[in-house]
């Protein structure tokens, strides 16, 4: 048997949609338990106070990456069988900068805002309303944005293909990068905490 199971087992459209709801429930539940339903938890990463978001995100990426490349290695799920995301580097760079801006201004990203709405956060309702407005505006303006949106297309290129190194080396490098970053931010957290404590108690006798 080979993955994706939907094509090997010839699931009907209805079964695939049921599976989508189940995967979504798992996704939403984990995001809630991770603490991503609160804007303050999400924003505090950008002030060096709590890097929970980065810990969850990098651990998730490394876990799934190791799984995906292991299943590719044993031939159970060749990497080409999953929907690989194409690269359009300039729109992705600009869109990423904008999404980062939206994140720190609004307090959420699209996925986390849905979980926040589900847990009653009124600020998240405004954020989700904003996403609808922004997305609709993009569609409305698309005739003049299409050229930019389709520019710098590189196809479905993976990082190791682009660098010309084996996939196993890339997996190792990304895992090391994640461990290194998380070690570094743990130190930053401790430094920020220390400086906040000394600001709050300026007259501590030494």
């Amino acid at each position: 048997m080979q993955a994706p199971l939907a094509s090997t087992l010839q699931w009907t459209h209805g079964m695939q949609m049921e599976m989508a709801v189940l995967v979504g429930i798992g996704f939403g539940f984990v995001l809630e338990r991770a603490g991503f339903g609160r804007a303050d938890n999400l924003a505090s990463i950008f002030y060096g106070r709590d890097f929970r978001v980065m810990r969850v995100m990098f651990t998730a990426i490394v876990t799934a990456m190791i799984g995906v490349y292991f299943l590719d290695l044993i031939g159970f799920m060749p990497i080409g069988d999953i929907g690989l995301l194409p690269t359009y580097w300039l729109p992705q760079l600009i869109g990423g900068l904008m999404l980062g801006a939206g994140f720190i201004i609004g307090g959420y990203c699209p996925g986390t805002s849905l979980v926040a709405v589900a847990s009653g956060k009124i600020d998240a309702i405004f954020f989700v309303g904003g996403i609808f407005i922004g997305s609709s505006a993009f569609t409305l303006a698309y005739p003049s944005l299409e050229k930019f949106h389709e520019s710098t297309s590189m196809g479905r290129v993976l990082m190791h293909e682009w660098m010309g190194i084996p996939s196993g080396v890339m997996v190792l490098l990304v895992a090391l990068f994640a461990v290194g970053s998380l070690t570094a931010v743990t130190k930053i957290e401790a430094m920020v905490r220390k400086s906040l404590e000394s600001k709050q108690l300026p007259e501590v006798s030494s």
Partner: protein
Amino acid sequence: MSKQREFWNPYAAGVALGLVLLASFVLTGQGLGASGAVTRVQASLWHALDPTWATENANIGKFFLSDTGALNTWIVFLVVGVALGGLLGALSAKRVKFETIHGPRIGRDMRWVFALIGGIISGIAAQVARGCTSGQALTGGAQLALGSWIFMFAVFGGAYGLAYFVRKQWI
């Protein structure tokens, strides 16, 4: 009301999130996402308003080519699940509370204005980048897709770059 359940250890939550994403790949070959569902919903609103215009729009026209329609698709059902899963998580942790999250130096109304503006920027951004933190950074990050990693660094860059200017909202 009894005490709410604590958040998970971030590394444990990360492994769980990674396994959900892996399960998604194994089951149907697709990753996670969120903003794509919003794109589909707003597309069907444009379609209801003016079917010809919507079908001819290069951004959303492709959604109306299939027999199943713009909404009867993976990403929309996934996001319905996300809302259900979030509700399930919040209910079982006794964390459902109608409130506005804001820092000590900003009022509720201004926080709403910022949330709306941030949402609008994010809605445009997710369309420009062809995905958001879930559909690009998480899904493409695990695939090692080049553009998704460019996107992820750009998100951190954009947020850190602006963080100082909106600090009064949060700290």
